């Protein structure tokens, strides 16, 4: 009897493999093979110079040396990080603030659903269309300049697209607007998950709202805060659509808004497979290392507490 049962279970369990076939086949063909091919390509010199095809010749680590030695890449990494930080700081600030307000039973905010719906909306907008919209709105003859002149704040159009600060600021601002709703909703879920008896005890002890926020909410929210930070940083390193469309792919003024993925896109577009491959591999490692570092720092204090 038992043997029979076992056989039947094994027969069923074969289906586990069968149901995995679509995922595994697709993953191997469209992700794993491309990943290996990308790494493989990074060791070759393979590009077009005018009409002549150069390579593919094996060059070892030359592509990596050229990338890291050129200084160009580090500049683009710096641009990416600057724009990410400029967008992330207000994002996390307002998300924490709104999360604390929405979850505070004493405040009893009305129209919560309306506000949540509105702040999440920009997250779903096509980033390329949103960037195009900002480009038209902030162009020299665009409505923003019209309005600012109409209000008497400035006397002639401010050229948003030729100043380093304003271009980076616009990119960061768009990222902030597009992502703070998402972050708010994630943090709010974390805050609502905190045991309410902790808050009641604190209130009985006469703690103020600020004290409760810093002493109870924030420490208990650490795991989810770090999750938000990791995913946002990884997303930030992939920043592409907004600066690409806003600056028409060249990252001007003076390449100050050129991100790493825009640089990669340039290599892919011009079919420079060697450099593109090396850049992809570097991005792969940076993403991996960053997530490991942050996940580790996130786990350490918990272990000490134990």
């Amino acid at each position: 009897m038992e043997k029979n049962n076992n056989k039947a279970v094994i027969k069923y369990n074969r289906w586990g493999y069968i149901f995995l076939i679509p995922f595994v086949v697709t993953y191997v063909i469209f992700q794993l093979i491309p990943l290996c091919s990308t790494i493989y390509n990074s060791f070759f010199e393979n590009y077009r110079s005018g009409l002549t095809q150069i390579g593919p010749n094996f060059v070892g680590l030359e592509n990596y040396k050229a990338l890291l030695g050129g200084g160009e890449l580090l500049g683009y990494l710096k641009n990416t990080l600057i724009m990410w930080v400029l967008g992330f700081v207000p994002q996390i600030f307002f998300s924490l603030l709104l999360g604390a307000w929405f979850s505070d039973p004493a405040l009893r905010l009305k129209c919560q659903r309306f506000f949540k719906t509105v702040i999440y909306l920009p997250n779903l907008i096509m980033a390329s269309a949103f960037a195009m919209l900002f480009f038209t709105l902030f162009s020299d003859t665009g409505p923003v300049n019209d309005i600012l002149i109409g209000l008497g704040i400035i006397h002639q159009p401010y050229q948003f697209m030729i100043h380093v600060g304003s271009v980076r600021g616009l990119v960061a601002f768009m990222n902030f607007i597009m992502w703070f709703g998402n972050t708010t909703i994630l943090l709010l879920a974390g805050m609502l998950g905190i045991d309410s008896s902790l808050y009641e005890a604190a209130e009985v002890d006469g703690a103020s709202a600020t004290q409760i926020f810093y002493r109870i909410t924030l420490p208990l929210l650490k795991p989810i805060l770090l999750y938000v930070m990791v995913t946002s940083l990884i997303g930030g390193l992939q920043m592409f659509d907004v600066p690409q469309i806003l600056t028409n792919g060249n990252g001007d003024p003076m390449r100050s808004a050129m991100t790493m993925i825009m640089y990669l896109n340039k290599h892919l577009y011009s079919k420079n497979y060697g450099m593109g491959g090396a850049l992809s591999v570097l991005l792969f490692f940076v993403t991996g290392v960053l997530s490991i570092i942050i996940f580790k720092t996130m786990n350490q204090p918990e272990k000490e507490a134990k």
Partner: protein
Amino acid sequence: MDTMNYKASRGMNIHARRIISYVVLVILTVLCLIWFYILMINATRSHGEMTRGFTPFPSTHLIENLHNVMHGTLPIAAGMRNSIFVSVCCAILCTYFSTMTAYAVHVYDFKLKKFMATFILAVMMIPGQVTALGFLRLIDRIGMDDSLTPLIIPSIASPIVYFYMKQYMESNLPSSLIEAARIDGSNEFKTFNWICVPLMKPAIAVQAIFTFVSTWNNYFTPALVLHTDTKKTLPVLIAQLRSADFLKFDMGQVYAMIAFSIFPVIVVYLLLSKYIVGGVTAGGVKG
């Protein structure tokens, strides 16, 4: 007396805090919506009207602008068709096969189960851009360059959607149901299609919406894969609009075209916002 004072100050505090929070919320609401408001207004105005400066009231040229967009140099109608086709196919394939993958790992017990579960989690964070180079070379070699197929098929393997489905299954798919189906003589494939998928409907709906929207918005891969104008999706056409000599364009058309690619998503969102906002917290959607 002391306690009364204390209570009064606390009451004032709450009142003041409530006012501050409403003010901040309203400012943020305005910051989120004003761009779309200006877009909506300007999409209804003609080029001539816009050169005379901004007014906060709509005009009467919306139909004219849309007509011009439809008959302009960029094949926007084809772009809309392509975008809808790719997004719908991705939403269906991605949710169905991710549910199937999650089902395999959740229900069955086989040798490689643990390895598969860890493997999928580990590769979840790999950004698609990193493999783009190999991906482009591959589709070049197998003759899929400049077609919509390579934008659709890869969505079958989506670790993030798999993860969401697996978590949903853990709390919503009792194994007794599957055993009961087996006793009744249903084969495994039928059990999956007629017992599991209907039970997973809420999760499938949420993920279908997210997959649809992210595919609709995707710009990086389509821009590298598609070369023929009539095969391009909306984001690629928008980018083309940006690289064209901007000042020669009829601004009414530019705004109408942006509105054309943004407002369908806004309408869908407003209709389904209840499920979408709930769905964000339920699973690990990229933040």
